[in-house]
């Protein structure tokens, strides 16, 4: 019992990341609505940001701003910087995906995957 508790509590951040990641991946794969898929994709990416940021934490460490005191322990700032870049990539992806959804809506009149597939199948059988 104690071992199980330690496994969960000791790695609480990883458990949260894994749960969030799976929810996001599931939504991105299973949802038929194109906007909801993007929401899932965003959740999935955000979980990875959390993974990185939680890994940069050093026990007893302070914010990585130079204090001048030799005894200060700093958290690792590098993961934060990396994730800043990854967030920008995520925003661009979301923006592009939403732009595509707008165009799809103009072209097909729907953003439901099954309806789009049906329209495409009809076109395919005619041409």
């Amino acid at each position, binding site marked *: 019992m104690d071992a199980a508790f330690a496994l969960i509590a000791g790695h609480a951040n990883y458990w949260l990341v894994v749960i969030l990641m799976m929810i996001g991946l599931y939504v991105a794969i299973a949802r038929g609505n194109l906007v909801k898929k993007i929401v899932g994709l965003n959740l999935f*990416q955000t979980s990875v940001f959390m993974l990185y940021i939680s890994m940069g934490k050093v026990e007893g460490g302070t914010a990585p701003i130079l204090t001048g005191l030799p005894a200060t322990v700093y958290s690792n700032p590098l993961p934060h910087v990396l994730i800043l870049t990854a967030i920008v990539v995520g925003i661009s992806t979301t923006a592009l995906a939403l732009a595509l959804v707008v165009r799809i809506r103009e072209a097909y009149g729907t953003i439901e995957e099954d309806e789009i597939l049906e329209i495409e199948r009809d076109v395919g059988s005619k041409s």
Partner: protein
Amino acid sequence: MLQALLHQLPVLQIVLPLVAAPIVAAFGGNGRGWMIAFATSLIAFAVAATLFAEVLDGSVISYHLGGWAPPIGIEYRVDILNAFVLVIVSGVSAICLLYARASIAAEVEEKNHAFFYATFLLCMTGLLGVTITGDAFNLFVFLEISSLSGYALISAGAKRDRRALTAAYNYLVMGTIGATFFVIGLGLLYMLTGTLNMADLAARLTGYGDSRTLRMGFAFIFVGIALKLAMFPLHLWLPNAYTFAPSAVSSFLSATATKVAVYALLRILFTVFGFDSAFEANVLRLIVLPLAIVAIFVASFVAIFAEDLKRMLAWSSIAQIGYMLIGIALLSHEGLMATVIHLFNHAVAKAALFMVAGAFMLRAGTTSIPDLRGIARDMPWTSAAFVLAGLSLVGVPLTVGFISKWYLVQAALTQNLWPVALLVVLSSLLTLTYVWRITETIYMREAPAGVRRSEAPLSMLIPTWIFTGLSLYFGIDAGLTSMAASRAANALLGASNLFWQ
């Protein structure tokens, strides 16, 4: 002055197209965009060729961005392998842009031309960046630059067929999942080593041994890149994307995007992981090798029954990626050589074939195979290019395809994997079947009554024939490509610990 410029070549390779892209977007109206983009790609090719000449003797150029020494700073690292890929990417970009002018004028709306060429340059920047960088996180950023602009380029085919939009959307979802997997794996590696520079990662992983974190990191990175390179069964985004993209884009992406992903895989597998633990070699032997063989047969069968020329070529690409993966999975000098040489050989052959499809699209208005009956009568030069490049895809002697398959079969035979060698040879028959099917349709069937199609314009014929000519020239005299491939394979194996075990 000149010497100072030479030292900056690695960064110029990336910065030139990156800076040219917004210029094209802002001032690219009235055909100026095409001119700037084409000039930029020519300069990029000259830079890549210079770098290639410099590292041909096996030396390595290390460029420190902003003067920060690695592993703190980002490093651009040019060796024979990625210089070879740089030449492929920039060369293909230049020739595709030459072709794009007439083709894109017909397939993309006039008002979007400036943005189209700006996106094209960005995609090229990303692909060159993935190739040149020596920093694993930087690789992710460039991968996403190339992928995001790639999605936009594919959706530019929406004027002709709205399905380009859904194809781009699906590619975006799959591609983003792949890229995110790559980042997860990289995070796990960072957790283990505290570094992101590839050479530094490799040094710290050597002798690290085995752990679950390392295995998970390997698995995530591997699956992430496998999605990007359309490894069977993660290939589902590719057929629609290449079918509905504008023809110049299909030609460009098929010749570069998946190739650069194969390069990234090679770099990560051999330079970073280096087969320190048996786990990595087992993944290749037990999972990748069978999947690659299945990919070749399944994708070739689908290609045989495809109703559309571009869709057939797209499925054929998936099969050809299978050959490259077999070469990697054999884990030998000959196998790697076959993979590296096939990177080049498939790029020129498939680019030529997609250009032929684009020429048919321009003159006949369709690439549906039944509608192309007898088109060789009206477009003899385009059709001849199709046959020659198609033969190269099959692997007939005196074409580049033969060189790749020769090395691949030899690599399999030296390891006594004769079933693999046999399957590779057999699969060529399937390739012959689908190439023959098109050849028969365009040469031997009667053209529909009253339909006349004029020959493609010179600006499209010349790039098509440059690629066709290259696929013949390097099939007859493979000295340069096989030397580069051999040295690249040596460098890869030298960096890994494969033969220590």
